[in-house]
């Protein structure tokens, strides 16, 4: 008996290292997670990035200011309009040009539509991560309609190159406003369907509530922004706190997590903030579509962007959080240095903080709630 026990103690247990990704169904691209597991429990996570690095920042130094716009599309490909907008905002700040009001409104409309489209992907893929496949197809179906609207406006469905420095490439087509309103009327009841099949499903709540709680302090320390930060209950939205474009003219609320199903800042809150934000975006869109003034969208487009000296940091609330562009102009038609602050990068960095100690399935759910886009993290 004693001998047997001694033998048993020789069976030492050890941690197993699991490589999740870069080819894995739920890492949302080519992220690699090195996971140390103790049974199902995850004791350490190391995110390894860089599989999609395309030298965006260095590349910008060889392109004229106008030519950079299509490349900003390719950073966050799920919210390309937002990236266009963020970049254009930075260059306009550097150029110190006044943008026509119509252009401002068009940009707000595009940004909010894009925010909805991006959140639809986030909600759908999050459902996919926790095992519900049906919500994903429904959200993608509705996103298609937004992409149709974008195609109607600028001819492209994913990578638009629509928002230019100083304006937009095309004015809105005639029936765009009517079609967008039609879409909004269609879309609002759909949110209730997502809630019914996913948000308030008991299994879903069990999987996400109280899981991977991100406290406001940790979120702020890590530089999290966007829905991830707001999910922790921090009322911080650049559209409200530092209004750019014409956002100060609209009436909307900042969606924050309130710990309805568990603690504040858990995975469910981060998910639900996106649902509320879609509703708020619909609100903004309705106001913007009603107020949009007339004007020439090309009035302020400079013939050739040439910036003498100077630098600028401009921040912008994209679907994933704060996108920052730091541009140093070198006196030529090309920038000397472009630095992009990627919101998803900061949001991803918090993963090992909040997901350690949870199970493998929870890591997937937490990662899904951070809603990362690798194109933007790796740039």
């Amino acid at each position, binding site marked *: 008996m004693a001998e047997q026990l001694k033998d048993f103690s020789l069976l030492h247990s050890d941690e197993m290292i699991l490589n999740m990704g870069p080819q894995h169904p739920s890492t949302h691209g080519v992220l690699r997670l090195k996971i140390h597991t103790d049974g199902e429990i995850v004791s350490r996570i190391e995110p390894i990035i860089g599989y999609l690095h395309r030298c965006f920042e260095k590349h910008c130094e060889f392109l004229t200011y106008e030519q950079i716009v299509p490349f900003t599309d390719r950073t966050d490909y799920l919210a390309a309009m937002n990236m266009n907008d963020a970049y254009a905002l930075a260059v306009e700040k550097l150029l110190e040009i006044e943008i026509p009001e119509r252009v401002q409104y068009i940009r707000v409309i595009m940004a909010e539509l894009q925010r909805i489209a991006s959140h639809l992907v986030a909600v759908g893929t999050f459902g996919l991560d926790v095992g*519900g496949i049906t919500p994903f197809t429904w959200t993608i179906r509705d996103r298609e309609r937004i992409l149709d609207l974008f195609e109607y406006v600028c001819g492209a469905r994913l990578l638009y190159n629509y928002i230019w420095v100083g304006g937009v490439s095309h004015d809105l087509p005639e029936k765009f406003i009517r079609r967008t309103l039609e879409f909004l009327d269609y879309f609002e009841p759909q949110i209730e369907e997502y809630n019914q099949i996913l948000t308030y499903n008991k*299994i879903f709540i069990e999987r996400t509530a109280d899981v991977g709680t991100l406290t406001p302090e940790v979120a702020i320390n890590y530089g999290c922004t966007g829905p991830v930060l707001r999910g922790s209950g921090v009322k911080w939205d650049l559209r409200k706190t530092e209004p750019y474009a014409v956002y100060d003219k609209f009436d909307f609320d900042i969606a924050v997590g309130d710990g309805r199903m568990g603690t504040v800042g858990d995975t469910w809150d981060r998910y639900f903030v996106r649902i509320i934000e879609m509703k708020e975006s619909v609100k903004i869109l309705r106001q913007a579509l009603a107020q949009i003034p007339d004007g020439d969208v090309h009035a302020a487009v400079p013939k050739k962007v040439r910036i003498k000296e100077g630098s600028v940091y401009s921040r912008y609330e994209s679907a994933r959080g704060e996108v920052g562009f730091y541009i140093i102009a070198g006196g030529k038609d090309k920038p000397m240095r472009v630095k992009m602050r990627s919101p998803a990068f900061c949001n991803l960095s918090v993963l090992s903080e909040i997901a350690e100690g949870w199970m493998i399935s929870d890591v997937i759910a937490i990662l899904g709630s951070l809603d990362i886009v690798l194109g933007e993290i790796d740039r």
Partner: protein
Amino acid sequence: MNSVIDSMMKIFGSLGTGNSALGLVLAVVIAGLVVFTIMAVMAIVAVYFERKVSAFMQDRIGPMEVGIFGFKGGKQFWGGIGQTLADTVKLLVKEDILPKEADKKLMIMAPFIIFIASFLTFIGVPLSDGLVVSDFNIGVFYIMAAGSIGVIGIILAGWSSNNKWSLYGALRSAAQIISYEIPIGLSLMLVVIVVGSLNFGDIVAWQADHRWFFIHSPFAFIAFIIYVIAGVAETNRTPFDIPEAESELVAGWMTEYSGFRWSIFFMSEYANVLIISIIASIIFLGGWLSPLAIFGVHVSWLEGPLWGLFWIFSKAVFFVFVMMWFRWTFPRLRVDQLMYFCWKVLIPFALANLIFISVWELIF
């Protein structure tokens, strides 16, 4: 006892040779082929059914290009009926990969163990009155026992693949299947207590005489619900598909399998779905009795072995649909929640049920 084997042996015996050993071999081979055919056809049909059901629930239209019988395309239910046949051909001619570091013998063996488990289970499953390969006295018990062999195959498959994802899937699966045998057994035991026999024929005969079990008493209804839920878990389907969990474990214990061997897994999975559905319809929904019998109406031309086959399959298809309906509606549970659900919800309820049904039987 009138089983298919018995009657075939009788026929072969009467053919003159009198050699009962030859008759037995012939009878076994023929019965085996029939069961195999049912399993294969079930897999093909169920895959198509599942694709279409999931597609319609997700606002898609599913396969619609590979039609046979001359029609193709369109949004009809049968628009792409040839798709699964094409997929079968694809699976059979696909390269069969054995990883270099895998335990090759076990890896080759594992699918067949799983297949044998569902094959053996089928032997005891009656498809109509008297239409059963072998009519056991202890039919319910036999099916529970034969069905649990499959988990050995799953563990072997997960271990021999030498892949971490497979290992996780196998261990999860083992824990899950062993746990969920208990609520299944307890809910079936309720019926056995009432009927007093483990034989399927007796159970159906009892229902013909009295009433169908799902409306027998509130406790029997709860047992029915528990059986369906645990049955879904037993077949590793969503929301209990944590062994496969494609978003977590890639494909669980099937990760390293491909081609023919993978298709055997697939076939066994759908055979298990069919077995669970048939047993649910036999035990709780009156088996081969016509649905009119609930209302006490007996139409003679709606009864008989062939009609019995029809009724049993209609009921089974309903259960298969319910399983698919679950799958395309719910997200997936976590491992610990799965265990919580089994041990802290289903088993207490099933045990309480047993006590209450005993009291019920004493009173009425």
